[in-house]
């Protein structure tokens, strides 16, 4: 009985520590104007993604070709103008937000869960298992991330699902390394010893004690990786290996508008700005978080 | 030339941070005679290192700032000098040994070059001559000169501290500031390094400020002692005066915290409590909330400076009305 109460007590201790820590982090984060700007922008994008149907009609404005209205400059009816098929660029950017954020988040989740699992067991158990996992990851790391993603999509075929798999898999080694390092840094702390001493098994120790206490660098890394994944997705779409037309996606909008830049530069202006804003906002948040989590590094 | 090598008067140094102002040094006065060694004693956070960095004019700014006061070294007003003049003085007239030898040496430069650098700057000699002198310096601190081409990671902690000492003494400074030079070392190595410093002090005939929290080290090396608490000197005197006629309750507390080898059954009497919050120092005596002799006046008024001899003074209310007041804890 006392065993159990001790477990709960230990856990509560760690939890209260966590809670006060996160309040502290939030307090420091609020002080950073750049992080707050980033947060505001990404909330705006989330809002656009969530309420896309209320902002613009998918079939009518973002997909249907309208030859009579093609290549119109920004105006009150089409605030960002229209593209080479007469589709409203603003509507396509709004709907593109859904794809970018969704694919970005899912692919980072894939990378985080597989890479995180590999990194956690490698770091926690060490020895041969660690060695084996890290050697395999070295192979993946020897291929530049975007090239690995391109290769995977090239083999599997271009689709939204394959795009998520490709970007996700190519980010596995990065996450594995970060999680492994984070686990290594807390593995020998005394509260882990304490948990082991009161009979917690490895799974409980990893999931309830090691991971929550090594979360900080992982959260920062994940935030930055969502940013680079959004960039990766539009890159793949730009070279025709990602989201296929006519589905609105920022990168493929740029690819489509490329031929018209001489006279209609707004075609590539706005989708590009959308990518920059989304990626920049996440980078701002990631930077702010890192400073807030580790004030001495500022 | 005055017989005072270093004279610090009413020095005030603050660190201005987002969370408030840290009053690290508040009206500090010390003097060091030529060729003499002053022990600056106090616990962590008393402002000892800040004092040392002030003499070097190396207080990191921001957040640190020398607010007021004066520092006179060898007749020069250090606070009035520009950066170029200071660069000529640092390493030449005054040198400093830092606390942690593990981090005090540049990991990517050979120890010989690190010693030779100071020589080349101040003695206007060429690379070859400076390297030769660097090897001699290594020999002086007890390291074979042929190791001068090695990098810091190839030396042990005690050896590194010897290298740091060699750097500091390479231009024969008039004043050496040693900031806890033995704290980071193993006990056995501590004694060796201390012995080395003692002999070099004589050999080079330099004045020294030895910063420490260890009264044993003070007894070993120093001529004068200044006890520092919360940014002020609370008691100062010759080694003998301070060790035989303890006046300040804090000094007494420091002595009572040392284990007595002759009487092992005797209980240690550590000073209770912690040093006052440097962001928010008390209005009266900074030590009063930890003091066994505290009186009401201690909380409201800054204690006066009371002299017992030309060299021995204390800052304490206890002696204001009765100079012969005796502290109750017996001396060992």
């Amino acid at each position: 009985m006392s065993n159990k109460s001790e477990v709960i007590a230990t856990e509560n201790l760690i939890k209260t520590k966590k809670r006060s820590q996160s309040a502290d982090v939030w307090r420091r984060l609020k002080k950073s104007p750049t992080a707050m700007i980033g947060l505001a922008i990404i909330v705006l994008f989330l809002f656009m993604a969530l309420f896309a149907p209320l902002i613009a009609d998918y079939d009518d404005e973002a997909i249907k070709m309208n030859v009579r209205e093609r290549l119109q400059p920004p105006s009150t009816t089409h605030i960002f103008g229209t593209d080479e098929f007469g589709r409203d660029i603003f509507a396509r950017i709004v709907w593109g937000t859904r794809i970018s954020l969704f694919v970005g988040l899912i692919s980072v989740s894939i990378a985080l869960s597989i890479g995180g699992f590999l990194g956690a067991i490698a770091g926690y158990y060490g020895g041969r298992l660690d060695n084996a996992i890290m050697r395999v990851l070295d192979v993946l790391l020897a291929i530049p991330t975007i090239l690995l993603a391109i290769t995977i999509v090239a083999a599997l075929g271009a689709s939204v699902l394959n795009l998520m798999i490709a970007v996700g898999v190519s980010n596995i080694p990065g996450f594995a390394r970060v999680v492994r390092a984070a686990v290594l840094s807390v593995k020998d702390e005394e509260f882990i010893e304490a948990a082991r001493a009161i009979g917690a098994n490895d799974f409980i120790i990893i999931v309830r004690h090691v991971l929550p206490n090594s979360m900080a660098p992982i959260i920062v890394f994940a935030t930055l990786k969502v940013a680079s994944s959004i960039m990766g997705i539009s890159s793949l779409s730009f070279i025709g290996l990602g989201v296929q037309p006519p589905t609105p996606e920022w990168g493929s909008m740029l690819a489509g508008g490329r031929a018209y830049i001489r006279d209609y530069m707004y075609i590539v202006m706005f989708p590009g700005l959308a990518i920059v804003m989304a990626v920049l906002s996440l980078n701002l948040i990631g930077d702010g978080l890192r400073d807030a989590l580790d004030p001495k590094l500022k | 030339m005055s017989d005072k090598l270093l004279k610090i008067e009413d020095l005030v140094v603050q660190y201005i941070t987002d969370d408030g102002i840290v009053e690290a040094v508040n009206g500090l006065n010390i003097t060091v005679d030529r060729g003499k060694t002053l022990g600056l004693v106090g616990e962590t956070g008393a402002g000892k290192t800040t004092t040392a960095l002030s003499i070097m004019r190396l207080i990191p700014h921001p957040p640190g700032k020398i607010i007021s006061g004066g520092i006179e070294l060898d007749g020069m007003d250090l606070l009035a000098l520009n950066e170029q003049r200071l660069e000529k003085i640092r390493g030449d007239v005054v040198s400093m040994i830092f606390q942690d030898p593990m981090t005090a040496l540049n990991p990517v430069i050979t120890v010989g070059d690190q010693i030779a650098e100071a020589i080349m700057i101040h003695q206007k000699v060429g690379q070859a001559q400076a390297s030769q002198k660097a090897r001699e310096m290594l020999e002086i601190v007890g390291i074979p000169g042929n190791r001068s081409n090695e990098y810091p990671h190839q030396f042990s902690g005690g050896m590194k501290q010897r290298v740091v000492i060699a750097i500091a003494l390479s231009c024969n400074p008039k004043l050496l500031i040693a900031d806890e030079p033995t704290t980071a070392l193993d006990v056995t190595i501590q004694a060796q390094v201390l012995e080395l410093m003692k002999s070099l002090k004589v050999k080079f005939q330099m004045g020294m400020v030895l910063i420490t929290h260890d009264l044993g080290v003070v007894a070993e090396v120093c001529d004068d002692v200044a006890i520092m608490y919360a940014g002020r000197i609370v008691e100062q005197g010759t080694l003998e005066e301070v060790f035989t006629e303890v006046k300040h309750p804090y000094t007494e507390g420091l002595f009572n915290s040392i284990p007595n080898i002759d009487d092992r059954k005797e209980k240690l009497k550590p000073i209770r409590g912690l040093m006052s919050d440097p962001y928010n120092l008390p209005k009266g005596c900074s030590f009063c909330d930890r003091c066994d002799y505290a009186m009401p006046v201690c909380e409201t008024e800054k204690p006066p400076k009371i002299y017992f001899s030309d060299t021995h003074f204390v800052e304490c209310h206890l002696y204001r009305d009765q100079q012969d007041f005796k502290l109750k804890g017996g001396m060992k």
Partner: protein
Amino acid sequence: MTKYILRRILMMIPVMLGVTLLVFFIISLTPGDAASMILGQEATEESIAELREEMGLNDPTIVQYVRYMGDLFQGDMGNSYATGKTVNSEIAQRFPNTFVLTVSAIFLSVLISIPIGVVSATRQYSIFDNVGMIIALVGISMPSFWTGLLLIIAFSLKLGWFPSGGMEGFISLILPAFTLAIASTASITRTTRSSMLEVIRQDYINTAKAKGVTRNVVIRKHALKNALIPAITVIGLEFGILLGGAVLTETVFSWPGIGRLMVESIQRKDTPMVLGSVIVFALAFSVVNLIIDILYAFIDPRIKSNYS
């Protein structure tokens, strides 16, 4: 030193073998039949079957891999399905172009980023630092294919200073090299700044100042060399990102390098060519990392002495 370099080269071999294995298996997942592709639509069933047998396409993937590796060790990466030319000749022809592009880009980034990073760190929180760091973050957040398009619009279509694509002399290198350099410049600047900030707080910087070393020499001699150690790591990683970025930049500027070759080959389902391109990219990246590790040993005596 030689021992260290040899060791690093030996360590590369299993990784490169792993890379070929991995890439070969990923590519083998590509749907479609190579034989019918090569022979075109008019080919008969029998001739396709015959070619399949001849090419060994009916063998298990692992057997095909071993055969591929056997050829690779003799310096043969097979023939293009689309043109019939050898992959070797195509890559040999294109590789120098990618090499010139990426090396100029990394050279450009290092040249710009290290001084800016150092100045930012020594004047932390100054206007220079704040503005510089915001620009750097924006730089990291800009997709190279978009930056490339903007540069084409401004400097080629509007101002007419540079060609918008192709490869005709030095002048056509400028826009793509800049495009490719932007992101890595930004991130090397950030790393240099933060590692400088870390280094200038170290005790040995105080030791140097206490010796009377002047501010400039402290920065150049004592701080920079230490700060370069992490910066070099990032330069190596950035080179990898740069190689990936070359795929996009070469596409935007019609630069005839391996990146563009790879994209074209993917669109044509020219598997041997895709395979060859990826392997060459990975090899280039590994060689860069090797060079970085050797540079390391030159800068950081702690590494050198471990192997001497």
